[in-house]
Each structure stands twice: as structure tokens, then as C-alpha cells.
């Protein structure tokens, strides 16, 4: 008997395997977390006497570049899952590898081309309300990207051994990792215009 039931077969009542329901419950909590922070942004902006246009403090080209990077990584992530549905571990490894590299590129741009130059120019969270909410929102998002990299790297490396013994269960795991990854992309889709363009 399996220690954990419904890892492949859907439950009769929900029509979902457990992992899929679990990740959506987790994503619901994430919606509340980022929703609270977006609300904080709105309240702070509405209450501010002056609010800088994002472009006056942030680099729009770098923000646009990072948006393109994350969208591309979402496409490669979904193709990693499609590759497993097509029973091709080799293709999966390529697409997942690209996803991880793109995520590392996103973090690299954020850290070395945005955060560190800002610190050199003495732009700290304590300097203004805008910078405080900018660093909070983007910092929390970057931590989510880092978490995604760790999970995806595990499934690209040692975690991929499961493909030999339980291919369907492994495919489901990648679908779950993908749902998380697309959510991280979705959050950035809102962060970019709100912080950089408005």
C-alpha cells in the first residue's frame, strides 16, 4: 500500500490528485500574501503627498528585460511538462535546464544591475516610502524565484530519478512545480507596471 494515496489517481470527491489540490491551497495563501502587499502599496500611494514615477528611480529597460526573461521561463517550464507527457526525459531536461538558467539570469539582473547599484547610490528602503515598498515587493518576489530555482534544480537533478520508477507521479510533480512557477511569473506581470511604469 502507498504511504500517501492519490499521488497519481484523482480522488473521487475532488477529481484531483492530492498534490494538485495542495499546490492550489498554497497558491491561495500566496494570493493573500501578495494581495496584502499590493493593498499596502495602494494605501501608501493614495496617502502620499508626493509619489515618484517609477521610471525616475528604476530602470524600465532592465524591468522590461526581466519581464521577457520570466515570460520565456514560463514557456520553457510548460514545455518541460509537455516533454514528460510526450515521454521524453531528454527534452524535459533541456527545457527545465533553460528554465533554471533564465531564473538565475532574472535574479542576477535584479541583484547586480538593480539592487547593488541602488545601494551604491544610497537608495535604501529607509530613504522613502516608494523605495520601502519597492524593495519589500521585489525582494519577496525574488525570494520566491529563488525558491522556484531550488525546487526546479532538484527535479532537474536528483529528483528526476523518479522518472525511471514512477513516470506518471514525476510528471505530476513537474505540473505542480510549474503551477508555482507560473504564479511567480503572474505576480511579476503585475509588479512590473505598478512599480516601474506608473
Amino acid at each position: 500500500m502507498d504511504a500517501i494515496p492519490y499521488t497519481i489517481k484523482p480522488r473521487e470527491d475532488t477529481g484531483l490528485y492530492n498534490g494538485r489540490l495542495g499546490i492550489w491551497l498554497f497558491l491561495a495563501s500566496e494570493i493573500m500574501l501578495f494581495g496584502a502587499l499590493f493593498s499596502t502599496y495602494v494605501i501608501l500611494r493614495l496617502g502620499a503627498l508626493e509619489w515618484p514615477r517609477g521610471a525616475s528611480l528604476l530602470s524600465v529597460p532592465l524591468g522590461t528585460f526581466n519581464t521577457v526573461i520570466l515570460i520565456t521561463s514560463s514557456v520553457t517550464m510548460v514545455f518541460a511538462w509537455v516533454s514528460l507527457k510526450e515521454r521524453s526525459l531528454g527534452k524535459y531536461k533541456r527545457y527545465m535546464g533553460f528554465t533554471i538558467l533564465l531564473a538565475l539570469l532574472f535574479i542576477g539582473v535584479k541583484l547586480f544591475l538593480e539592487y547593488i547599484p541602488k545601494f551604491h547610490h544610497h537608495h535604501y528602503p529607509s530613504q522613502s516610502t516608494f523605495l520601502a515598498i519597492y524593495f519589500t515587493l521585489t525582494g519577496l518576489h525574488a525570494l520566491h524565484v529563488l525558491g522556484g530555482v531550488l525546487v526546479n534544480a532538484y527535479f532537474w537533478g536528483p529528483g528526476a530519478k523518479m522518472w525511471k520508477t514512477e513516470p506518471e507521479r514525476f510528471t505530476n510533480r513537474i505540473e505542480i512545480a510549474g503551477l508555482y512557477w507560473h504564479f511567480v511569473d503572474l505576480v511579476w506581470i503585475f509588479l512590473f507596471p505598478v512599480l516601474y511604469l506608473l
Partner: protein
Amino acid sequence: MMQKESKKYIGVGLTLFLLTAVTVAARQLNAGIALAICIALMIAIFKGSLVASFFMHLASEKKAIYILLLSTIFLFIIMIGFILIGRVNVYEGLSHVP
């Protein structure tokens, strides 16, 4: 079957790139801040719904997930409601953030 799915995902990806370009280009219009916010948020909502519907398969998800997400939205609206009530009910002089 999967080939058709692949084409769909590529189409969604290309649309997302195009809409990102439109968002950045719309900034150059020098429209008023209210209009700029409306345009940027409408595009962001459309892009977000594309990601959720196709990449996250929400377009063909099970009822349990829809109930879960609707409950989340309901709770989120309650949370925003409390925040807005708190904002209205403040002393004069505390209504602005320095």
C-alpha cells in the same frame, strides 16, 4: 494532441511578449496618470488571465479549484474592505504618509 497544445503555449507566449511591448510603449503616450494606470492595469489583468487560463490550466480546471479560488477572492475583498474602512476612519493629519 500534445502538438496542438504546444502551438497554443507558443501562441500565448508570443501574445505575452507583444502585450509587454504595448505596456512599455503606452508609457510614452504621456497620458494622464489615471488613464496610464487604467491602461497598464487592464493589460496586466489580461496578461495575468492568459497565464492563469492556459499555462496554469485554469480554463479547464476542476470545480474544487474554482470554489477554492472564489473563496480566496471573497476573503481578499473582505481584507481590502477592512483596510479601506481603516483608511477612512483616521484623524485629520494622519491621513497622509510622509
